[in-house]
């Protein structure tokens, strides 16, 4: 990449970020004026709590989408993980072992997802949608539709644990976000994901183990969905097949708004996803705070998604035309 191209691509990402930041500031400003409760400590806490699970899953989804794929299994893995964790705990399995077993199960599911994708030559959207459907059916069968409660007291108390004033889910997210952000710039494997997503054949020819990389990407995404499911069970001291419904759409929207391209692999960033996460969290909170109708909410979210995609794709076209 010559100097001019590198500068241009930096400008491309920066422009997208600038627009996002501007939108974030505008919405925050408008809401702060409209509602005296928007900038209160309790609302800001709630704002984060409302979107923290999606935030965690968005980190894994970013890598999947950059690799050229997509993962709809998360909407099935989240409730499945909360249910399996609850059942293990109620059967006196120690907490650490139960968590490890759940993560292992998710890794297995991620592996199965990738194997089906590869061996059946199916688009990841189809495979992951099917697996999510199976998992949701399993969830309903296991729980019979009711929520699982009556979890051990020690587990229930975890929901009130605060480290530095923050719940466990926030701490987990902060650690994961830092890891992903740092690694996406400095870790060889993460950088390989960009390469494979951009040009799978070139990556393969240059010696990268492409199949192993795809498998790991789906394992990571599945594992993060399991983490979200575990944290959800902790937060609500309960497990239900209903958790995570449509979370896949919210997570994918977050990643797309952050600038990661859904149509071309190899393009995107964790930093963009972090900004997209902040934006979505604010928007969802603003919806409830302002009391606007659900129908407007869907229109607004959809509009922003379209704009985000147009922005990132439009800039790409501009770049290609110039070079």
């Amino acid at each position, binding site marked *: 990449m010559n100097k001019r191209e590198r500068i241009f691509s930096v400008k491309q990402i920066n*422009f997208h970020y600038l*627009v996002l930041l501007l*939108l974030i500031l*505008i*919405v925050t400003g*408008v809401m702060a004026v*409209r*509602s005296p*409760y928007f900038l*209160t400590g*309790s*609302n800001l*806490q*709630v*704002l984060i*709590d*409302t979107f923290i*699970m999606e935030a965690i899953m968005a980190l894994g989804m970013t890598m999947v989408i950059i690799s050229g794929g997509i993962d709809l299994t998360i909407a099935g893995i989240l409730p499945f993980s909360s249910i399996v964790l609850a059942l293990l705990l109620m059967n006196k399995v120690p907490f650490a072992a139960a968590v490890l077993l759940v993560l292992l199960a998710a890794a297995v599911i991620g592996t199965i997802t990738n194997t089906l994708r590869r061996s059946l030559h199916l688009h990841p959207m189809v495979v992951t949608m099917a697996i999510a459907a199976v998992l949701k059916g399993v969830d309903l069968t296991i729980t*019979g*539709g*009711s*929520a699982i*409660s009556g979890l051990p007291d020690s587990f229930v108390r975890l*929901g009130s644990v605060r480290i530095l004033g923050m719940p466990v889910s926030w701490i987990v997210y902060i650690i994961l976000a830092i890891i992903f952000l740092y690694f996406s710039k400095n870790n060889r494997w993460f950088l390989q994901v960009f390469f494979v997503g951009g040009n799978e054949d070139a990556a393969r020819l240059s010696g990268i183990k492409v199949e192993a990389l795809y498998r790991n990407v789906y394992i990571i995404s599945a594992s993060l969905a399991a983490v979200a499911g575990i944290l*959800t069970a902790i*937060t*609500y*001291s*309960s497990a*239900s097949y*209903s*958790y*995570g*419904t*449509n979370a896949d759409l919210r997570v994918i929207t977050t990643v797309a708004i952050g600038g990661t391209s859904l149509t071309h692999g190899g393009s995107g960033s964790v930093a963009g996803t972090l900004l997209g996460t902040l934006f979505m969290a604010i928007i969802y*909170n603003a919806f*409830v*705070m*302002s*009391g*606007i*109708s*659900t*129908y*407007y909410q*869907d*229109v*607004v979210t959809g*509009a*922003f998604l379209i*704009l985000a995609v*147009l*922005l990132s794709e*439009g*800039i790409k076209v*501009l770049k290609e035309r110039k070079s």
Partner: protein
Amino acid sequence: MKRKIALGLTLAVLASGLAGCGNAAPQTSGTGGAAKSEELYSMVVFTKGAEYFNWCYAGMKDAAASIGDHITVELQGPAEWDASLEARTVEQVTAKNPTGILVASADETTLNAAIGKALDAGIPVIGFDSDAAESGRLSYVGTDNYDFGATAAKSMAEMLGGEGEVAICMVPGAIAQEERAEGFKNWLEENAPDIKVVSELNDEGDVAKSETVCTALLQSNPNIKGIFSTHGYGAPGAAAAARTLNMLENVVIIGSDYSSAVIELLQSGDIEGTVVDDPYLIGYEAFMLAYAAAHPTAVPSANPPFGHVPPVIYGGSQLLTGEMLEDEAVLAKYQNPPAVN
């Protein structure tokens, strides 16, 4: 140039979206009076957009209107049936510091912490329709499902002349439905012992599945004289099964709740009745309780610092028949549910 267009478009959409916020309608209504401080009451439901909850909200709006125009009401909640999303909505609503919250819980446990936090913040919480009994909510307004089942049993007994074999179609594990089935069976045992419940089928709450299990039922047991479905999708399925087997004349079908499919079948006579409860009344009374809880009197209540509320109010249920639908006014009510934006 393209960047400017993109930026301009973005800001335009944003501006119009937020302008839409300005017209968004938390509803205010009612007669004027002495200046009173503004109050906000939030109704939080799951599957927002569902007709049943729109009725509840209509009741809440009218109740608020009858008190005064200083009261604003709003309807919040996720469009999907996700209890964790609904719990988060309750927390978001709590952060707005409303005067009261009415909540229909997506399940019995997930919202407990969020409801507890609202109560700790001094906001009265009234449960309605689907209860979270252990959340500490001050009161519950809903349907007595045992009574609901008993209403069905009474009608079934009348239509069958007091004897025969009947079956129940339901979703096992759904608490409201278990209670309706229980109420149905108990009433029959006590009042029409010659009517025997010979089968309880799981139709998974789905009309196609209901048709399948009812077909199997009627084929294996042609003596079945009546089928009761504890939810809204069972009766159309049972009717389809009976029609295919040419047994519509011999089988009395009574459903629960209503939908346009059920209304049509009632009018054509394929099903003999459906038990309906009163979501409008439930929403109306739930609001009144929230208002009462937010306005304690000089005499301390059982839930200080909140005002006096009873532990539970049931909205009652009745049988809706095709005959009743011949009245234009009644038909209009069931065919034109309130629209909520």
